């Protein structure tokens, strides 16, 4: 799977066990790929003495605030962007 800029994605709801860099507040939420950073060592194994291989594609993913927080107080156009690894994303 390689995701492209502009594609809609959903963040997986996997449990945060071990060392995970996907924050709880985006799990299960839908966003849009805004950029592709290339591949980076996998923190989930690097955190336990592993070598981080195979490296994982990393994406810049944008979310509408109102999709993350139902009672978001600001304008509907406000957003949150994060860096998420491919194995936490599925096509939406």
């Amino acid at each position, binding site marked *: 799977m390689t995701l492209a800029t502009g594609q809609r994605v959903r963040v997986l709801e996997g449990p945060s066990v071990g060392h995970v*860099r*996907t*924050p709880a*507040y985006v799990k299960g939420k839908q966003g849009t790929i805004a950029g592709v*950073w290339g591949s*980076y*060592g996998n*923190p989930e194994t690097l955190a336990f003495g592993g070598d981080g291989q195979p490296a994982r594609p*990393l994406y*810049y993913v*944008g979310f509408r*605030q109102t999709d*993350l*927080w139902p009672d*978001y*107080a*600001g*304008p509907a*156009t*406000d*957003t*949150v*962007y*994060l*860096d*998420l*690894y491919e194995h936490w994303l599925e096509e939406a």
Partner: protein
Amino acid sequence: MSDGHGHDHGHDHDHGHDHDHDEPVEGALPAAALRTRAIESLLVEKGVLTAEAVARGVDWLVSRTPTNGARIVARAWVDPAYKQRLLADAKVAAGELGIDAAQSVTVVALENTAAVHHLVVCTLCSCYPRALLGPPPAWYKSNAYRSRAVVEPRAVMAEFGTELPAEVEVRVVDSTADIRYIVVPRRPAGTDGWSEEQLAAIVTRDSLVGVVQPVAGEPVAV
């Protein structure tokens, strides 16, 4: 648990108070200082590290200041071609000014415009472009900032005195991986004809994170 010994602050009293209002004073724990010294001396004694390597780390850290970031922004304000190179690869652009950002894997510059205002946070820990800006401010590492910035960024910015119109998209950027972000704030009105040095002097540390915007004020003598 390795953290179960050597610390004598009130376990029983504190237990379970997840949102206590007494955020610790940075550096207030002599126990942690002592353990740091003990671990340092043992690592050097065993040859795991050299004292020189530790000293180099301290030198590196104190050599990094927001002044570096301010120089980069000021150059981007006066030189559109440089700004394009900065937005394309911030490490290379920093290198042009003699600033070595090698310790960061990837650095990305986020340009604030009339339409989009970036605010950087690390909700999971305290990721920060240390190679360019030095150690993060204490507020950036605080539990309150990390909790609130992604859910009420406008309220957080208001505490710093920053109010943005509703038509500006506030874009919070949560540094969750190996990318380090530096904000390129908007050049304030009233700075026409200023030198690069004068411009750099109004680019504050907090404006490079996006909680404030530079203001012209009086031109700074150089």
